């Protein structure tokens, strides 16, 4: 890459949205350049304007309410013409979409049309932009499926999206986007909804393809770790502005803007044990008018402030084990029937949880990690008797939960609570958040009257870091992180002693994730909770837990002290999980860049 050819120039792009409170600028006049053959990562938290930027380039901003109010997006074609994509008529623009500039979206689950086969959807793009007949288009499609390493392309060609896994769907999306050899591929959080192990394979695939097909990639994500795995250059966006640009190594070695530093620091580090995660607040102060005051903290300083020594960890563990276990799971099996014979007798089972036994001590956090489909969520639900167990025992303080009658179970719900994965769908949109938090208290007859309950809700809201005056607001007025705080407050309403967090931070940005994780840890110290913490991300689980269980195909693969498992994983599966985490370490990035230079040379 000796001579850098300009491919796309974005100049002073402003995009705004009309809302009830007047027009809001999502992108506030940003400029950047994309060169041929490079991968640029745009990083920032939700609401930073990174997705809006990409949709503006494609001119796919939903309008109304959105509008590109000014700026230029100049595309340099292969034959040397320069075209401002914002000025050309819509029909002209359509010829560029999918052909010269294509896009992959965040949600592979919903981004494919459910009523057409995958093959049809990819073929559609090819037939539209290339002058080929159906036969040839099918051949190209199958070839693309081969390239994105889908198993058995002819079968995938005829399969409907719901018959594929999330990773496979994202591969189909990539095949669709790459099918016309685009100059630019815009990938908007393409791996955020996927497991870390699947994320790793998708990132590798995109790296390979960009080299093979010589496309430039604009890779949008909230996770700097992922950027380290794929990008050549990084653009950091914060509240609609670009706050920092630079080569990926520079950004990781020497981040200048405090926001970039906070993004680097807030990912749970793997090598060290921290008492809490550094957050944006440790690096800068955001004033009410949106201006930023830098606090001059470096990433190392922030992390060193909260690091916990090995001795302290050991001491804590020993103290925990002195007590009798609060929860004992013995030979637990949760099987779901898949086939029944004529007489209604089950002939085959899906063994979601198969013979699992472990113990949790009071005050401890037990981590549960594994890929999606490994049975970790089912295990969590079976422990609460929310999913029917096939066999086994779950003893909570010596009483078997599985054989309890409904009155005892209702009592038990006071002690054991669960926080679900998706803060968007686990709150009733027609209930005020105050009402949602208060409901479990009314159901269980806690506190004597409405007034006391309301006071309690308000104190809970401030415990989880929300404004008690928001009592009468509805869920849609809150961001994802705030909603998860509401869910936590709701779980706390019954004064439980035992909480299961089922992928509670997976839907959140890393910066927000850090805040919620810190909150959960603070609550553990303050109220002495016992957690079971379920996640597909080993780094998050390791940060949270004292002990850890690695699950695979319904069985326990490995179990023990979290740090020990990480430092010395015994099973190949655990090693794979650890290997898949985007670590964002300098050595890895240097190695990757060196490798790609070798290929190009």
């Amino acid at each position, binding site marked *: 890459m000796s001579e850098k050819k300009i491919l796309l120039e974005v100049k002073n792009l402003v995009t705004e949205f009309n809302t009830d409170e007047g027009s809001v600028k999502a992108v506030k006049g940003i400029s950047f350049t994309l060169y041929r053959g490079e991968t640029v990562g745009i990083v920032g938290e939700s609401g930073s304007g990174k997705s809006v930027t990409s949709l503006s380039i*494609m001119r*796919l901003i*939903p309008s*109304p309410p959105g509008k590109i109010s000014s700026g230029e997006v100049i595309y340099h074609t292969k034959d040397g013409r320069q075209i401002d994509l914002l000025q050309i008529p819509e*029909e002209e623009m*359509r*010829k*560029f*979409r*999918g*052909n010269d500039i*294509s*896009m992959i*979206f965040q*949600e592979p689950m*919903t*981004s*494919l*049309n*459910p*009523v*057409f086969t995958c093959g049809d959807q990819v073929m*559609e*793009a090819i037939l*539209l*932009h290339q002058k080929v007949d159906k036969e040839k288009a099918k051949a190209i499609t199958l070839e693309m499926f081969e390239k994105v390493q889908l198993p058995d392309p002819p079968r995938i060609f005829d399969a*409907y999206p*719901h018959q594929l896994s999330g990773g496979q769907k994202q591969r189909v*999306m990539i095949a*669709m986007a790459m099918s016309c050899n685009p100059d630019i591929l815009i990938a908007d959080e393409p791996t955020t909804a996927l497991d870390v192990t699947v994320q790793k394979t998708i990132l590798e695939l995109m790296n390979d393809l960009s080299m093979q097909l010589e496309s430039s990639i604009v890779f949008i994500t909230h996770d700097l770790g992922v950027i380290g795995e794929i990008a050549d250059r990084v653009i950091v966006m914060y509240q609609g502005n670009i706050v920092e640009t630079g080569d990926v190594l520079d950004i990781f070695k020497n981040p200048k803007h405090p926001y970039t530093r906070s993004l680097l620091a807030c990912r749970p580090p793997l090598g060290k044990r921290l008492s809490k995660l550094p957050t944006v607040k440790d690096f800068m102060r955001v004033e009410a008018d949106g201006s930023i005051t830098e606090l001059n903290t470096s990433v190392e300083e922030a992390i060193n402030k909260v690091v916990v020594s090995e001795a302290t960890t050991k001491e804590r563990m020993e103290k925990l084990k002195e007590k009798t276990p609060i929860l004992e799971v013995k030979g637990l099996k949760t099987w779901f029937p898949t086939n029944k014979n004529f007489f209604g007798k089950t002939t085959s089972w899906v063994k979601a949880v198969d013979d699992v036994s472990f113990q949790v001590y009071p005050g401890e956090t037990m981590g549960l990690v594994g890929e999606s489909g490994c049975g970790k969520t089912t295990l969590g639900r079976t422990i609460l008797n929310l999913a029917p167990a096939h066999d086994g025992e779950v003893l909570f303080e010596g009483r078997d939960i599985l054989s309890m009658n409904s009155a005892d179970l209702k009592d038990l719900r006071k002690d054991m609570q669960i926080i679900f994965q998706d803060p968007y769908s686990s709150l009733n949109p027609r209930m005020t958040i105050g009402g949602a938090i208060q409901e479990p208290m009314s159901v269980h007859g806690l506190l004597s009257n409405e007034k006391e309950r309301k006071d309690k809700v308000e104190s809970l809201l401030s415990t989880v870091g929300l404004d008690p005056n928001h009592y009468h607001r509805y869920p849609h007025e809150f961001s994802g992180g705030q909603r998860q705080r509401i869910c936590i407050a709701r779980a706390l309403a019954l004064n439980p002693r035992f909480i299961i967090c089922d992928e509670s931070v997976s839907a959140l940005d890393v910066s927000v994730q850090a805040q919620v994780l810190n909150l959960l840890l603070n609550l553990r110290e303050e109220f002495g909770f016992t957690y079971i913490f379920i996640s597909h991300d080993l780094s998050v689980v390791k940060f949270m837990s004292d002990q850890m269980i690695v699950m695979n195909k319904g069985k326990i693969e490995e179990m023990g002290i979290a740090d020990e498992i990480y430092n010395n994983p015994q099973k190949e599966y655990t090693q794979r999980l650890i290997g898949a985490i985007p670590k964002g370490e300098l050595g890895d990035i240097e190695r990757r860049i060196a490798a790609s230079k070798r290929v190009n040379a």
Partner: protein
Amino acid sequence: MSLGQNADEETVMAMKKKLRLNYSPAQRLWFYLSDLSPVSIQSHSNPDAPLYLKNGDYQYVEWLKFKHKSIVLKKPYMGRSFQSDKPVLEILRRKLVPTLILACSAIGIASIIGVLLGILSALNYGTFMDRGLISLSVLGISIPSYFSALVLAIVFGYYLSDWTKLNITGPLLDVSDVGEYFINWKNLILPTIALGIRPVAIILQLTRNSMLDVLRADYVRTAKAKGLSEQKVIIKHALRNALNPVVTSITGWFAALLAGAFFVEYIFDFKGLGHETVHALTMFDFPLVMGSVLIIAFSFVFVNILVDILYTYLDPRINING
């Protein structure tokens, strides 16, 4: 009833026996079900038995023969009309055809107009046109069909009849001045409109709402990002996903129209199933009423099975066995 006031005892008895009125209601129900069943046990030796095989009402094939009884395969038999003494099935079959045509044309036209207006409304979301269409459809839902039927009949069939050349009332199978039967398609127009107004309004709203949902879906954005034209995105990618709830409503209405164009058929003197049923009710012609209720129930079930099969074509995620 059908004998008039001066019938003597003997005739009444004979009539009662013929109509099986001398049995208890439970027994009569049993006989009725047995008559309906395609397989039944009939008596072939005793002409006085209520299920005597050879009285000319049954079209059957004998399967197994015993001493007094035999098991037969037969066409369902719904008895005879009290009024006309004709087999119920035959009467209803003749009346079902015009009703079927009326229901098909009403729902067909309603679907086409409703879906088109619904798409139009969704694409112009929030504009004057959208609001206008919604207001009109609310009006359409609120007007009872017998009222709109009366208004239509008077306005287009009477006041404007010189211009529209339409009759105020009339059946599909009309009798000409010289006594020949002919199909008078003109008489289909007004009932179709009167029956179609409510379905149009409801289909419009359903299509609009469902389209609005689908147009916000991620896969529609994907289709646009592919470079497809607006038209193709809407018709191919959005509409097919939006149609599911609309199909439910269309078929629901279709079944309802088959059954219940009572008022409209009566007002327009359109001699179909609904007209016949109302007439039979006023005449206490119970076999006929029972028969038409059965046929209506059957058509509901049939249409719904059809819809379930249709769904699997519309949405591959639905598995008919699952």
